């Protein structure tokens, strides 16, 4: 395992968090869609998902910020 | 470190295998072989029967009804042709034994499915769910339209039938 693999793994770990963030976003959109289809209080669903999506996006961004910041000035 | 890699590879492998197995086990039902290689096409062509000729309850009952040997026996108490399969039918009729047909289409007990609703009231064609069964020369070996809720819902949405869970679940 050389340095290159480690960097690839590191990039992979950042994509993981984005995988989580995006899947949460997709899940929220899916749930909103379902709520609209069955007329089950969609506005509440929208309100809750907005908060959830926002939080996860900020979390993902912070981690990415650190990752980019630590790699930019490497060496 | 090596242990970690080996462990995670093994874990991923197990995950892949189990998920493949899981998906596979859900979809692929082993094919069902009937005791007699019944020929729907020949039957319809020779006798001019419609589906309802043999599946008599299809419009009035929840189950369509598989003909019993008394029905078969009306014609097949002796050989009418030369086929080997007919021979078997005749044998069953002579022994007065019901033919052990095997179920292909079945719904779980928590689902209310009725042919009356679909054929009698909604006037659906048999082929919607059972495919071109009238022109088949051998009995179907597996479900033409898999009995899955998504299939039901797709059709219900298409024809604006009720998609309320309580329309079918019980």
């Amino acid at each position, binding site marked *: 395992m050389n340095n290159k693999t480690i960097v690839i793994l590191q990039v992979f770990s950042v994509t993981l968090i984005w995988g989580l963030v995006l899947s949460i976003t997709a899940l929220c959109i899916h749930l909103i869609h379902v709520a609209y289809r069955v007329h*089950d209080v969609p506005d509440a669903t929208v309100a809750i998902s907005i908060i959830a999506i926002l939080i996860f996006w900020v979390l993902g961004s912070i981690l990415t910020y650190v990752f980019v910041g630590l790699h930019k000035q490497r060496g | 470190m090596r242990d970690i890699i080996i462990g995670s590879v093994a874990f991923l492998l197990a995950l892949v295998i189990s998920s493949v197995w899981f998906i596979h086990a859900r979809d692929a039902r082993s094919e069902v072989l009937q005791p007699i290689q019944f020929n729907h096409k020949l039957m319809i062509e020779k006798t001019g029967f419609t589906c309802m000729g043999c599946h008599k309850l299809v419009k*009035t009952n929840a189950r369509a009804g598989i003909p019993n040997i008394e029905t078969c026996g009306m014609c097949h108490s002796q050989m009418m042709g030369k086929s080997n399969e007919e021979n078997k039918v005749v044998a069953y009729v002579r022994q007065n034994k019901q033919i052990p047909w095997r179920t292909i289409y079945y719904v*779980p007990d928590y689902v209310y499915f009725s042919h*009356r609703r679909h054929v009698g009231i909604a006037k659906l064609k048999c082929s919607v769910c059972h495919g071109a069964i009238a022109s088949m020369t051998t009995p179907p070996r597996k479900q033409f339209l898999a009995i899955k809720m998504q299939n039901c819902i797709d059709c219900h949405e298409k024809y604006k039938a009720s998609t309320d*869970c*309580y*329309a*079918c679940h*019980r």
Partner: protein
Amino acid sequence: MARYGMVIDLDRCTGCGACVTACKAENNVAIVSEDDAKMGRTMFWMKMLVGYEGEYPNIKMKFIPRLCFECDKPPCIKVCPVRATYKNEDGLVAQIYPQCIGCRYCMAACPYTVKVFNWYRYVPEKPMSNCINPDVSVRPKGVVEKCTFCIHRLQKAKELAQAEHRKMREGDYVPACMQVCPAKAFYFGDLDNPQNRVTEAMRDVRGFTLLEDLGTDPKVHYLHAK
């Protein structure tokens, strides 16, 4: 769409328990072992609640057959995380067993405690296993179940009415508990139809519902002269 409701005349009810038995038989409600019963796992969709009024020796027993009240504003459906319980177009509170994940939140939210849970997979023993009603599913383990107003009867009745090209009539569809009541204490039918006997009974001055102040608007009313 119809809005099915029920009225139970407590002044007629003798507390015989025929409705309880009929419900158990009709809906394949499990009969649990003695040990389980002691832990409070008896399963009743229709339960005979017994209240006592007055002081010894002038005690008056009060019988209240309690089924799911099919509330118009049910507290249980609000909390279900997977839409396994919801109010359907006929105003019935549906409980969809294959959808239920068994979190039992609806049970905690129901102020009337009408829901029961399948703690085990109950396999009916020999004589009873012949008495399974094929129209009703046998619930698997780990799901919540409750009175359905005998929904399987409605499914059939609706279909028969459709096949005969007519509208549903009063009496086409009655739950099992009402059918067997020897005291004729039950009224059942579409509440939107003012001609029904049930709507008439609902206008009775003796009428009340349990825990009225919660605003759940139960569709099962009781009649009782104070």
